[in-house]
Protein backbone atom coordinates (compact mmCIF):
# COMPACT_ATOMS: atom_id res chain seq x y z
CA UNK A 1 0.00 0.00 0.00
CA UNK A 2 1.32 3.42 -0.89
CA UNK A 3 0.64 4.92 2.51
CA UNK A 4 2.84 2.32 4.11
CA UNK A 5 5.68 3.33 1.86
CA UNK A 6 5.38 6.94 3.03
CA UNK A 7 5.42 6.23 6.73
CA UNK A 8 6.28 2.57 6.56
CA UNK A 9 9.85 2.90 7.74
CA UNK A 10 8.62 4.51 10.91
CA UNK A 11 5.93 1.91 11.31
CA UNK A 12 8.03 -1.15 10.70
CA UNK A 13 11.02 0.02 12.68
CA UNK A 14 8.90 0.60 15.73
CA UNK A 15 10.71 -1.35 18.41
CA UNK A 16 9.56 0.41 21.54
CA UNK A 17 7.24 -1.19 23.99
CA UNK A 18 3.60 -0.24 23.92
CA UNK A 19 2.65 2.42 26.39
CA UNK A 20 -0.70 3.75 27.56
CA UNK A 21 -1.23 7.31 26.41
CA UNK A 22 -3.84 9.75 27.74
CA UNK A 23 -4.84 12.53 25.35
CA UNK A 24 -6.35 15.16 27.64
CA UNK A 25 -9.71 16.39 26.33
CA UNK A 26 -10.54 19.80 27.78
CA UNK A 27 -12.87 20.85 24.97
CA UNK A 28 -10.29 22.66 22.83
CA UNK A 29 -10.88 21.34 19.35
CA UNK A 30 -10.93 18.08 17.49
CA UNK A 31 -8.60 15.39 18.84
CA UNK A 32 -9.26 12.70 16.23
CA UNK A 33 -6.08 13.47 14.29
CA UNK A 34 -3.83 13.18 17.35
CA UNK A 35 -5.34 9.84 18.35
CA UNK A 36 -5.12 8.61 14.75
CA UNK A 37 -1.36 9.24 14.64
CA UNK A 38 -0.82 7.11 17.75
CA UNK A 39 -3.14 4.43 16.33
CA UNK A 40 -0.87 4.37 13.28
CA UNK A 41 2.14 3.84 15.57
CA UNK A 42 0.33 0.91 17.15
CA UNK A 43 -0.01 2.69 20.49
CA UNK A 44 -2.96 2.61 22.84
CA UNK A 45 -4.02 6.24 23.05
CA UNK A 46 -7.25 7.25 24.76
CA UNK A 47 -8.98 10.61 24.55
CA UNK A 48 -10.10 11.38 28.09
CA UNK A 49 -11.26 14.14 30.42
CA UNK A 50 -10.94 11.90 33.46
CA UNK A 51 -8.23 12.89 35.97
CA UNK A 52 -7.82 9.27 37.11
CA UNK A 53 -7.11 8.14 33.56
CA UNK A 54 -4.46 10.88 33.28
CA UNK A 55 -3.01 9.67 36.58
CA UNK A 56 -2.75 6.07 35.36
CA UNK A 57 -1.26 6.86 31.93
CA UNK A 58 2.39 6.27 31.06
CA UNK A 59 2.35 9.21 28.65
CA UNK A 60 0.23 12.36 28.72
CA UNK A 61 -0.63 14.55 25.74
CA UNK A 62 -2.03 18.05 26.28
CA UNK A 63 -3.33 18.98 22.82
CA UNK A 64 -5.59 21.85 21.88
CA UNK A 65 -6.39 24.49 19.34
CA UNK A 66 -8.25 27.74 19.76
CA UNK A 67 -8.39 30.37 22.49
CA UNK A 68 -6.12 30.29 25.57
CA UNK A 69 -9.27 30.82 27.66
CA UNK A 70 -10.16 27.18 26.89
CA UNK A 71 -7.33 26.09 29.21
CA UNK A 72 -9.46 27.28 32.16
CA UNK A 73 -11.30 23.96 31.78
CA UNK A 74 -8.09 22.13 32.75
CA UNK A 75 -8.34 23.73 36.18
CA UNK A 76 -11.73 22.09 36.68
CA UNK A 77 -12.21 18.32 37.03
CA UNK A 78 -8.82 17.98 38.73
CA UNK A 79 -7.05 17.75 35.38
CA UNK A 80 -4.43 20.36 36.20
CA UNK A 81 -3.52 18.55 39.39
CA UNK A 82 -3.36 15.21 37.56
CA UNK A 83 -1.01 16.68 34.91
CA UNK A 84 1.17 18.36 37.54
CA UNK A 85 1.51 15.15 39.54
CA UNK A 86 2.31 13.21 36.34
CA UNK A 87 5.13 15.69 35.70
CA UNK A 88 6.41 15.28 39.26
CA UNK A 89 6.40 11.49 38.93
CA UNK A 90 8.55 11.76 35.81
CA UNK A 91 5.83 10.75 33.32
CA UNK A 92 6.62 12.17 29.87
CA UNK A 93 4.11 14.95 29.09
CA UNK A 94 3.78 16.55 25.64
CA UNK A 95 1.89 19.78 24.96
CA UNK A 96 0.81 20.42 21.37
CA UNK A 97 -0.04 23.91 20.01
CA UNK A 98 -2.28 25.53 22.66
CA UNK A 99 -1.19 22.76 25.02
CA UNK A 100 2.42 23.94 24.67
CA UNK A 101 1.45 27.59 25.21
CA UNK A 102 -0.30 26.54 28.43
CA UNK A 103 3.06 25.20 29.70
CA UNK A 104 4.40 28.78 29.67
CA UNK A 105 3.64 31.26 32.46
CA UNK A 106 0.76 33.02 30.70
CA UNK A 107 -0.66 34.30 27.42
CA UNK A 108 -1.73 37.79 26.35
CA UNK A 109 -4.73 36.06 24.78
CA UNK A 110 -6.29 35.50 28.22
CA UNK A 111 -4.18 37.48 30.65
CA UNK A 112 -6.18 36.51 33.74
CA UNK A 113 -5.26 32.84 33.40
CA UNK A 114 -2.12 31.14 34.62
CA UNK A 115 -0.30 28.52 32.61
CA UNK A 116 1.80 25.75 34.13
CA UNK A 117 4.89 27.98 34.28
CA UNK A 118 7.30 25.16 33.38
CA UNK A 119 8.65 27.48 30.70
CA UNK A 120 9.19 31.21 31.23
CA UNK A 121 7.45 34.14 29.66
CA UNK A 122 4.16 35.18 28.17
CA UNK A 123 2.77 34.07 24.80
CA UNK A 124 2.02 37.04 22.56
CA UNK A 125 0.16 37.78 19.33
CA UNK A 126 2.09 37.92 16.05
CA UNK A 127 3.05 41.49 15.13
CA UNK A 128 0.91 43.42 12.64
CA UNK A 129 3.77 43.25 10.10
CA UNK A 130 2.78 39.66 9.16
CA UNK A 131 -0.52 38.00 8.31
CA UNK A 132 -2.06 36.20 11.24
CA UNK A 133 -2.73 33.36 11.91
CA UNK A 134 0.60 31.77 10.92
CA UNK A 135 -0.75 28.92 8.79
CA UNK A 136 1.30 26.43 6.82
CA UNK A 137 4.66 24.68 6.63
CA UNK A 138 7.65 26.46 8.10
CA UNK A 139 11.18 25.29 8.79
CA UNK A 140 12.55 24.57 12.25
CA UNK A 141 15.93 25.82 13.39
CA UNK A 142 17.71 23.67 15.94
CA UNK A 143 18.51 25.09 19.34
CA UNK A 144 19.92 23.02 22.18
CA UNK A 145 20.00 19.26 21.99
CA UNK A 146 16.63 17.54 21.78
CA UNK A 147 15.43 14.10 22.83
CA UNK A 148 12.36 14.17 20.59
CA UNK A 149 14.26 15.18 17.45
CA UNK A 150 17.08 12.68 18.01
CA UNK A 151 16.01 10.72 14.90
CA UNK A 152 15.47 13.76 12.67
CA UNK A 153 18.67 14.82 10.90
CA UNK A 154 17.88 17.89 8.84
CA UNK A 155 15.89 20.84 10.09
CA UNK A 156 12.43 19.75 8.92
CA UNK A 157 9.40 21.63 7.62
CA UNK A 158 6.46 21.21 9.97
CA UNK A 159 2.83 22.37 9.92
CA UNK A 160 1.73 25.32 12.06
CA UNK A 161 -1.60 27.05 12.62
CA UNK A 162 -1.69 29.65 15.43
CA UNK A 163 -2.15 33.37 16.13
CA UNK A 164 -0.16 33.56 19.37
CA UNK A 165 3.44 32.49 19.83
CA UNK A 166 5.64 31.47 22.71
CA UNK A 167 8.87 33.35 23.47
CA UNK A 168 12.34 31.85 23.21
CA UNK A 169 13.24 30.20 26.50
CA UNK A 170 16.44 28.59 27.76
CA UNK A 171 14.67 25.25 27.18
CA UNK A 172 13.91 25.98 23.50
CA UNK A 173 15.16 23.07 21.34
CA UNK A 174 13.79 24.38 18.02
CA UNK A 175 12.80 27.86 16.94
CA UNK A 176 10.90 29.17 13.95
CA UNK A 177 10.87 32.50 12.14
CA UNK A 178 7.67 34.40 11.31
CA UNK A 179 7.65 38.12 12.03
CA UNK A 180 10.46 37.35 14.50
CA UNK A 181 11.75 34.25 16.20
CA UNK A 182 9.59 32.14 18.51
CA UNK A 183 9.73 28.80 20.33
CA UNK A 184 8.61 25.93 18.08
CA UNK A 185 9.69 23.15 20.48
CA UNK A 186 10.69 23.15 24.15
CA UNK A 187 12.01 20.38 26.40
CA UNK A 188 12.66 20.38 30.13
CA UNK A 189 13.36 17.00 31.70
CA UNK A 190 10.17 14.98 31.09
CA UNK A 191 8.09 17.95 29.88
CA UNK A 192 7.88 18.61 26.14
CA UNK A 193 6.02 21.16 24.05
CA UNK A 194 5.61 21.71 20.31
CA UNK A 195 3.86 24.67 18.72
CA UNK A 196 3.37 22.85 15.42
CA UNK A 197 1.16 19.83 14.82
CA UNK A 198 3.30 16.66 14.70
CA UNK A 199 0.19 14.68 13.71
CA UNK A 200 -0.04 16.87 10.57
CA UNK A 201 3.65 17.27 9.77
CA UNK A 202 4.28 14.18 7.65
CA UNK A 203 7.20 11.87 8.40
CA UNK A 204 9.06 14.32 10.67
CA UNK A 205 6.01 14.64 12.91
CA UNK A 206 5.36 10.91 13.10
CA UNK A 207 9.03 10.32 14.01
CA UNK A 208 8.72 12.85 16.81
CA UNK A 209 5.62 11.16 18.24
CA UNK A 210 7.36 7.80 18.01
CA UNK A 211 10.36 9.18 19.91
CA UNK A 212 7.96 10.45 22.58
CA UNK A 213 6.44 6.96 22.93
CA UNK A 214 9.93 5.44 23.24
CA UNK A 215 11.20 7.77 25.99
CA UNK A 216 12.20 6.00 29.18
CA UNK A 217 9.62 6.48 31.91
Amino acid at each position, binding site marked *: *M*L*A*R*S*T*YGSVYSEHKGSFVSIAIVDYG*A*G*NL*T*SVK*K*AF*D*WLGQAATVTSDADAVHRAERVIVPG*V*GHFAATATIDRNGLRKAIESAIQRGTPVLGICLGMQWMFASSAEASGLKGLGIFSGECEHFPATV*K*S*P*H*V*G*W*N*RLHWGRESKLFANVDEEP*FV*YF*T*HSYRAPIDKYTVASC*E*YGGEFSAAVERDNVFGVQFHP*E*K*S*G*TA*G*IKLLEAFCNLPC
Partner: protein
Amino acid sequence: MLTKRIIACLDVDGGRVVKGVKFLNLRDAGDPAELASAHSEAGADEIVLLDISATAEKRNTLLDTVRKTARQLFIPFTVGGGIRSLEDASAVFDAGADKVSLNSAAIAHPELITQIAERFGSQAAIVAIDAKKMDGRGYQVFAAGGRTQTGRDVCAWAREAESRGAGEILLTSMDRDGTGIGFDCELTRLISTNVRIPVIASGGAGSSAHFVEVFRDGQADAALAASILHYGITKLGDLKQELAAAGIPMRWPC
Protein backbone atom coordinates in the same frame (compact mmCIF):
# COMPACT_ATOMS: atom_id res chain seq x y z
CA MET B 1 10.34 31.29 6.18
CA LEU B 2 6.69 30.31 5.83
CA THR B 3 6.34 28.39 2.58
CA LYS B 4 3.61 28.74 -0.04
CA ARG B 5 1.36 25.70 -0.06
CA ILE B 6 0.40 23.48 -2.99
CA ILE B 7 -2.90 21.80 -2.18
CA ALA B 8 -3.99 18.73 -4.10
CA CYS B 9 -7.74 18.56 -4.70
CA LEU B 10 -9.73 15.37 -5.20
CA ASP B 11 -13.28 15.58 -6.56
CA VAL B 12 -15.22 12.65 -5.19
CA ASP B 13 -18.59 11.30 -6.32
CA GLY B 14 -20.13 8.40 -4.44
CA GLY B 15 -16.83 7.54 -2.79
CA ARG B 16 -14.79 7.52 -6.02
CA VAL B 17 -12.39 10.14 -7.38
CA VAL B 18 -13.99 11.47 -10.54
CA LYS B 19 -10.97 12.77 -12.39
CA GLY B 20 -8.26 10.31 -13.31
CA VAL B 21 -4.59 10.70 -12.61
CA LYS B 22 -2.45 9.61 -15.51
CA PHE B 23 1.04 9.86 -14.04
CA LEU B 24 0.41 7.77 -10.96
CA ASN B 25 0.81 4.11 -11.57
CA LEU B 26 -1.95 2.99 -9.26
CA ARG B 27 -3.85 -0.23 -9.23
CA ASP B 28 -7.01 1.73 -8.58
CA ALA B 29 -6.95 5.32 -9.82
CA GLY B 30 -10.36 6.05 -8.35
CA ASP B 31 -9.69 5.31 -4.70
CA PRO B 32 -9.56 8.57 -2.67
CA ALA B 33 -7.49 7.11 0.17
CA GLU B 34 -4.86 5.73 -2.16
CA LEU B 35 -4.73 8.92 -4.25
CA ALA B 36 -4.49 11.18 -1.21
CA SER B 37 -1.56 9.13 0.09
CA ALA B 38 0.11 9.21 -3.32
CA HIS B 39 -0.23 13.00 -3.48
CA SER B 40 1.12 13.31 0.06
CA GLU B 41 4.11 11.20 -0.86
CA ALA B 42 4.67 13.22 -4.04
CA GLY B 43 4.93 16.42 -1.99
CA ALA B 44 1.42 17.85 -1.60
CA ASP B 45 1.26 20.20 1.38
CA GLU B 46 -2.41 19.49 2.03
CA ILE B 47 -5.28 17.47 0.64
CA VAL B 48 -8.75 18.79 -0.14
CA LEU B 49 -11.53 16.29 -0.79
CA LEU B 50 -14.59 17.82 -2.43
CA ASP B 51 -17.74 15.71 -2.43
CA ILE B 52 -19.63 16.50 -5.60
CA SER B 53 -22.23 13.75 -5.16
CA ALA B 54 -25.60 14.98 -6.33
CA THR B 55 -27.73 12.36 -4.58
CA ALA B 56 -28.26 11.65 -0.90
CA GLU B 57 -27.52 7.93 -1.39
CA LYS B 58 -24.12 8.69 -2.81
CA ARG B 59 -23.46 11.31 -0.15
CA ASN B 60 -23.94 8.75 2.59
CA THR B 61 -20.66 7.14 1.63
CA LEU B 62 -18.78 10.39 2.31
CA LEU B 63 -18.00 9.73 5.98
CA ASP B 64 -16.68 6.30 5.17
CA THR B 65 -14.47 7.81 2.46
CA VAL B 66 -13.21 10.51 4.84
CA ARG B 67 -12.43 7.91 7.50
CA LYS B 68 -10.47 5.68 5.13
CA THR B 69 -8.58 8.62 3.64
CA ALA B 70 -7.75 10.22 6.99
CA ARG B 71 -6.51 7.01 8.57
CA GLN B 72 -3.30 6.99 6.56
CA LEU B 73 -2.84 10.72 5.95
CA PHE B 74 -0.56 12.82 8.18
CA ILE B 75 -0.80 16.18 6.46
CA PRO B 76 -3.72 18.64 6.77
CA PHE B 77 -6.96 17.27 5.32
CA THR B 78 -9.93 19.41 4.31
CA VAL B 79 -13.37 18.12 3.36
CA GLY B 80 -15.96 20.16 1.48
CA GLY B 81 -19.23 19.73 -0.35
CA GLY B 82 -22.67 19.40 1.17
CA ILE B 83 -21.75 20.50 4.71
CA ARG B 84 -24.87 22.39 5.80
CA SER B 85 -24.93 22.26 9.60
CA LEU B 86 -22.77 22.03 12.71
CA GLU B 87 -23.80 18.36 12.91
CA ASP B 88 -22.58 17.71 9.35
CA ALA B 89 -19.27 19.37 10.21
CA SER B 90 -18.91 17.47 13.51
CA ALA B 91 -19.42 14.15 11.73
CA VAL B 92 -16.73 15.02 9.16
CA PHE B 93 -14.29 16.05 11.94
CA ASP B 94 -15.02 12.85 13.86
CA ALA B 95 -14.21 10.90 10.71
CA GLY B 96 -10.75 12.51 10.65
CA ALA B 97 -10.94 15.78 8.69
CA ASP B 98 -8.91 18.71 10.05
CA LYS B 99 -10.85 21.46 8.29
CA VAL B 100 -14.19 21.81 6.55
CA SER B 101 -14.83 23.96 3.51
CA LEU B 102 -18.18 25.78 3.47
CA ASN B 103 -19.66 27.41 0.39
CA SER B 104 -23.42 27.73 -0.25
CA ALA B 105 -24.34 26.89 3.34
CA ALA B 106 -22.15 29.74 4.62
CA ILE B 107 -23.88 32.17 2.26
CA ALA B 108 -27.35 31.00 3.35
CA HIS B 109 -26.45 30.74 7.04
CA PRO B 110 -23.33 32.82 7.80
CA GLU B 111 -23.71 32.04 11.53
CA LEU B 112 -22.59 28.49 10.67
CA ILE B 113 -19.04 29.84 10.20
CA THR B 114 -19.05 31.18 13.76
CA GLN B 115 -20.57 28.00 15.20
CA ILE B 116 -17.86 25.85 13.63
CA ALA B 117 -15.08 28.31 14.57
CA GLU B 118 -16.22 28.45 18.20
CA ARG B 119 -16.51 24.70 18.51
CA PHE B 120 -13.51 23.54 16.48
CA GLY B 121 -11.38 26.69 16.12
CA SER B 122 -11.06 29.13 13.23
CA GLN B 123 -8.26 27.06 11.71
CA ALA B 124 -10.87 24.38 10.98
CA ALA B 125 -13.30 26.67 9.12
CA ILE B 126 -12.55 27.43 5.48
CA VAL B 127 -14.99 29.54 3.47
CA ALA B 128 -14.96 28.74 -0.25
CA ILE B 129 -15.99 31.55 -2.57
CA ASP B 130 -16.87 31.11 -6.24
CA ALA B 131 -16.23 34.45 -7.93
CA LYS B 132 -17.11 35.81 -11.37
CA LYS B 133 -16.27 39.20 -12.86
CA MET B 134 -19.42 41.08 -13.87
CA ASP B 135 -19.48 44.09 -16.21
CA GLY B 136 -19.40 47.27 -14.16
CA ARG B 137 -20.04 45.48 -10.87
CA GLY B 138 -16.67 44.00 -10.07
CA TYR B 139 -16.39 40.45 -8.73
CA GLN B 140 -19.65 38.82 -7.64
CA VAL B 141 -20.24 35.75 -5.45
CA PHE B 142 -22.05 32.74 -6.92
CA ALA B 143 -23.59 29.85 -4.97
CA ALA B 144 -24.80 26.32 -5.69
CA GLY B 145 -21.75 25.33 -7.70
CA GLY B 146 -21.82 28.54 -9.73
CA ARG B 147 -25.47 28.27 -10.73
CA THR B 148 -26.95 30.94 -8.47
CA GLN B 149 -25.99 34.60 -8.47
CA THR B 150 -26.10 35.96 -4.93
CA GLY B 151 -25.67 39.67 -5.65
CA ARG B 152 -22.86 39.80 -3.10
CA ASP B 153 -19.55 41.52 -3.69
CA VAL B 154 -16.64 39.08 -3.30
CA CYS B 155 -14.47 41.42 -1.25
CA ALA B 156 -17.29 42.29 1.15
CA TRP B 157 -18.20 38.62 1.59
CA ALA B 158 -14.58 37.59 2.20
CA ARG B 159 -14.29 40.25 4.89
CA GLU B 160 -17.55 39.16 6.47
CA ALA B 161 -16.43 35.53 6.45
CA GLU B 162 -13.20 36.57 8.20
CA SER B 163 -15.05 38.60 10.83
CA ARG B 164 -17.40 35.68 11.46
CA GLY B 165 -14.45 33.39 12.23
CA ALA B 166 -13.26 31.84 8.97
CA GLY B 167 -9.63 30.74 9.16
CA GLU B 168 -8.90 30.69 5.42
CA ILE B 169 -10.55 31.68 2.14
CA LEU B 170 -10.60 29.23 -0.78
CA LEU B 171 -11.11 31.56 -3.73
CA THR B 172 -12.14 30.09 -7.09
CA SER B 173 -12.27 32.12 -10.26
CA MET B 174 -15.24 30.82 -12.27
CA ASP B 175 -13.92 32.67 -15.31
CA ARG B 176 -10.64 30.75 -15.22
CA ASP B 177 -11.76 27.39 -13.82
CA GLY B 178 -10.90 24.59 -16.23
CA THR B 179 -9.33 26.91 -18.81
CA GLY B 180 -5.67 26.27 -18.04
CA ILE B 181 -4.84 29.88 -19.02
CA GLY B 182 -3.66 30.89 -15.54
CA PHE B 183 -5.06 31.98 -12.19
CA ASP B 184 -6.96 35.27 -11.89
CA CYS B 185 -4.16 37.19 -10.16
CA GLU B 186 -6.18 40.42 -10.02
CA LEU B 187 -8.98 38.70 -8.09
CA THR B 188 -6.55 36.87 -5.81
CA ARG B 189 -4.58 40.00 -4.99
CA LEU B 190 -7.80 41.95 -4.34
CA ILE B 191 -8.93 39.48 -1.69
CA SER B 192 -5.50 38.68 -0.29
CA THR B 193 -4.83 42.36 0.43
CA ASN B 194 -8.27 42.90 1.96
CA VAL B 195 -8.31 40.10 4.52
CA ARG B 196 -5.69 39.08 7.08
CA ILE B 197 -6.37 35.34 6.84
CA PRO B 198 -4.68 33.11 4.23
CA VAL B 199 -6.12 33.01 0.71
CA ILE B 200 -6.00 29.82 -1.37
CA ALA B 201 -6.15 30.55 -5.10
CA SER B 202 -8.05 28.18 -7.35
CA GLY B 203 -9.02 27.93 -11.00
CA GLY B 204 -7.03 28.26 -14.19
CA ALA B 205 -3.69 26.60 -13.47
CA GLY B 206 -2.13 25.20 -16.64
CA SER B 207 1.61 25.48 -16.01
CA SER B 208 4.13 26.01 -13.25
CA ALA B 209 4.54 29.62 -14.44
CA HIS B 210 0.91 30.23 -13.48
CA PHE B 211 1.69 29.21 -9.90
CA VAL B 212 4.68 31.58 -9.82
CA GLU B 213 2.37 34.39 -10.99
CA VAL B 214 -0.35 33.74 -8.43
CA PHE B 215 2.12 33.58 -5.54
CA ARG B 216 4.13 36.61 -6.70
CA ASP B 217 1.54 38.89 -8.32
CA GLY B 218 -1.62 37.48 -6.76
CA GLN B 219 -0.09 37.34 -3.26
CA ALA B 220 -1.77 33.98 -2.68
CA ASP B 221 -0.76 32.04 0.41
CA ALA B 222 -1.60 28.71 -1.17
CA ALA B 223 -2.81 27.39 -4.51
CA LEU B 224 -5.08 24.53 -5.39
CA ALA B 225 -3.85 22.05 -7.96
CA ALA B 226 -6.67 20.03 -9.48
CA SER B 227 -6.76 19.23 -13.19
CA ILE B 228 -3.09 20.12 -13.68
CA LEU B 229 -2.34 17.06 -11.55
CA HIS B 230 -5.30 14.96 -12.60
CA TYR B 231 -4.47 15.08 -16.26
CA GLY B 232 -0.80 14.52 -15.67
CA ILE B 233 0.27 17.85 -17.18
CA THR B 234 2.62 18.39 -14.28
CA LYS B 235 3.99 16.16 -11.56
CA LEU B 236 3.77 17.63 -8.10
CA GLY B 237 7.46 17.19 -7.38
CA ASP B 238 8.46 18.87 -10.64
CA LEU B 239 6.04 21.71 -9.95
CA LYS B 240 7.45 22.36 -6.48
CA GLN B 241 11.02 22.11 -7.75
CA GLU B 242 10.32 24.68 -10.49
CA LEU B 243 8.64 27.03 -8.03
CA ALA B 244 11.55 26.72 -5.60
CA ALA B 245 13.96 27.48 -8.46
CA ALA B 246 11.89 30.58 -9.28
CA GLY B 247 12.43 31.82 -5.73
CA ILE B 248 9.00 30.93 -4.31
CA PRO B 249 9.42 29.55 -0.77
CA MET B 250 8.46 25.88 -0.99
CA ARG B 251 8.48 22.88 1.29
CA TRP B 252 10.89 21.06 -0.96
CA PRO B 253 12.48 18.61 -0.68
CA CYS B 254 10.05 17.24 1.83
